């Protein structure tokens, strides 16, 4: 999604590479049509950052709902539930957060045009993301409460589910970038696609850190 929609059709845009994305505009040319080039692509990164800023506010709203409901609900945990197990999710968290560093290594490799190394690091990032999703699913299956069990159950599944959708989206986007890296001349027009997906991945990780703190570390009332 991020790449195919946030780009100008290559047929219309002679300056764009097959990826459809020029380098995200050079600052010294100022806004607009630089050296008279006929380009209305190449603004992908700008657009993607604006999108992420907006997206982060959905999470901010959900966090706010969680905090308010936790502070005001007369009954919080469903009957018979003591709290959430922290150990497994903590391992999951460490895997997901450190995958951000791996993604960074992949991007650095790509900058240095070490394509094979880029693919290996990128694949490892995807594997760590998948590990997280599987771990999350296993946790869901083992929990003694469901979506309808009080405000806590609803909040827990909505927050982790919405974040999990983002992790899955991130892995799928990375798969798309990996597939594209095999096309010849893919990076002639810049690496805005990979940079955008990398940003998205860091974003998903940062959201998880906050989420982990809210759901697992802040269990008392």
């Amino acid at each position: 999604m991020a790449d195919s929609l946030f780009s100008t059709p290559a047929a219309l845009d002679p300056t764009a590479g097959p990826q459809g994305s020029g380098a995200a505009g050079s600052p010294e040319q100022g806004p607009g049509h630089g050296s008279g080039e006929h380009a209305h692509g190449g603004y992908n990164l700008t657009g993607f950052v604006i999108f992420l800023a907006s997206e982060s506010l959905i999470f901010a709203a959900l966090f706010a709902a969680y905090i308010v409901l936790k502070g005001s609900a007369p009954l919080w945990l469903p009957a018979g539930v003591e709290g959430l197990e922290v150990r497994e999710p903590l391992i999951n968290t460490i895997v997901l957060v450190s995958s951000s560093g791996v993604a960074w290594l992949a991007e650095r490799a790509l900058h240095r045009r070490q394509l094979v190394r880029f693919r290996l690091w990128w694949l490892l990032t995807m594997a760590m993301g998948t590990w997280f999703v599987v771990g999350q699913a296993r946790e869901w299956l083992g929990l003694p409460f469901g979506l309808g069990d009080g405000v806590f159950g609803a909040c827990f599944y909505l927050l982790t589910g919405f974040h999990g959708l983002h992790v899955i989206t991130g892995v799928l986007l990375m798969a798309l970038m990996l597939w594209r890296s095999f096309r010849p001349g893919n990076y002639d027009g810049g690496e805005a696609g990979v940079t955008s997906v990398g940003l998205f991945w860091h974003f998903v990780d940062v959201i998880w850190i906050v989420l982990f703190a809210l759901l697992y570390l802040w269990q008392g009332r």
Partner: protein
Amino acid sequence: MTTTPIPFDPRTLRAPHPVPGAPDNWRRFFTFNTDAKVIGIQYIALALLFLLVGGLLAMIMRGELITPPADLVDPSVYNGLYTMHGTVMLFLFLFPILNGFNNLLIPPMIGAPDMAFPRLNALAFWMFPVFGVVLMASFLVPGGPASSGWWAYPPLSTQNPLGLLINGQFLWILAVAISGVSSILGAVNFCTTIIRMRAPGMGWFRMPIFCWTALAAQTIQLAGLPVLTAGAVMLLFDLSFGTSFFQPEGGGDPMLYQHFFWFYSHPAVYVMVLPVFGFFSEIFPVYARKPLFGYHVVAIASFGIVFLSLIVWVHHMFTSGTPQWMRHVFMVTTMLIAVPTGIKVFAWLATLWRGKLWLTTAMLFAMGGVFNFIFAGITGIMLATVPVDVHVGNTYFVVGHFHTVIFSTITFGVYAAIYHWFAKFTGRMLYEGLGKVHFVLTFVGAQLNFLPMHWAGLMGMPRRVASYDPEFALANVLASLGAFLLGVAMIPFLLNLVSSWVRGARAPANPWQAIGLEWLLPSPPPAENFEHDVPTVISGPYGYGLGHPLVADQERYEARLKEG
């Protein structure tokens, strides 16, 4: 000497250059076209269609209210009517039509060939018919459309007496959610275009005010819509999946939804009114032949409004059991909004002051819109005052105030923009005579419709009721007559649009002698606007009577227009 045969292709004979707004080849308006000017006209045409739908719903309601008892429609049908009237007018008329103007105006005004992401732009547009159909389909499902008001407050909105998964409220939430996604994609596109694609030399403070206000409005979309989306998702879960985020009996908090809803839906009014402030700021200098008074301050005030709009939402909840300290804080922030908006109003008045006024239809609608806006601003300050609001909240006073903003200001501004830019983007002139008939009917109809509502509200008539005490009868009869007059006013308007577009006089490139990049293009502009030949901007906008050119080499651009 041999002559080269000219290649002949009958398809190119009618339109040698594909011109997006011209009436020939109308089929492209029904395709997935990525040209911003085609998309702009698609938005505007479909939004006007939904204006007719929303207006029809309003006239049925006013027909019901012309007599005190509920005799025309059943009270439960009436609940559906006002819910759908509000939703259609906001989500299917005003937001889309303003997005249409963003598409038409932003690229030419800043000298860009198109939007930054044309395919994303087309995708955002094609979501509009989808959520339009979803919302209209809710009239057909068992139980009828959503009937909890356009606020959809729980627990009323989470009632599902028939127990069906697909019900009116479900479709309502779905439509609002798709509309939200479409608006966020649009906002990303508009912001990126304005930030990154301005013509050489067009610094921030050489940008037309419309672009400032569009950027400000889209910033609100980006900040507010995600919050509404979060609230709508939780509402959907409560309605369909048995959660209790907003259900007090399950430990939830119905006030939380009200916070989420108004955190977006109050600023949403500024999303609609800011571009209209932009229209006023563009139109007054043209027809008063004077530079816009206080350009810098007007530009910055737009972002003052953005900032304040995000911290005023609780004024909709003064009577919802809000703590007293919150009422105080939000009363003060709400009143502060009068400062940046007041700055703009004074700037427009100062622009008109001692100008040589040219009373075209566009100018009449703009002046009428500001006139009504001043009235709405005064009643707005009254409503911001907690002691007044506690008494008139949820009465017709609020309805009158809101419609004076939404119709008598914003829709007037939209009409003004249509009369001002129609010639530019279709290449045909609108008939001024029909336009003035439209203005007179609309202005009289609006006053007759919305002024008596204030009176009925001050007397205590509650909103959202199908029957009322006979003491309110006179105000309601007047309001209903005004509503029907507004319906009649659509006839000359639509007649004018269709007949002018098909066979109106050919428009010159600059019929109003206006200053701006879009007026240096032919009417209608070619598909990629200036293409490779983007002018370099050398002075600020609105240089009326100052005698300096807007762009380098201006004579060349003007000469080219005369040749064409």
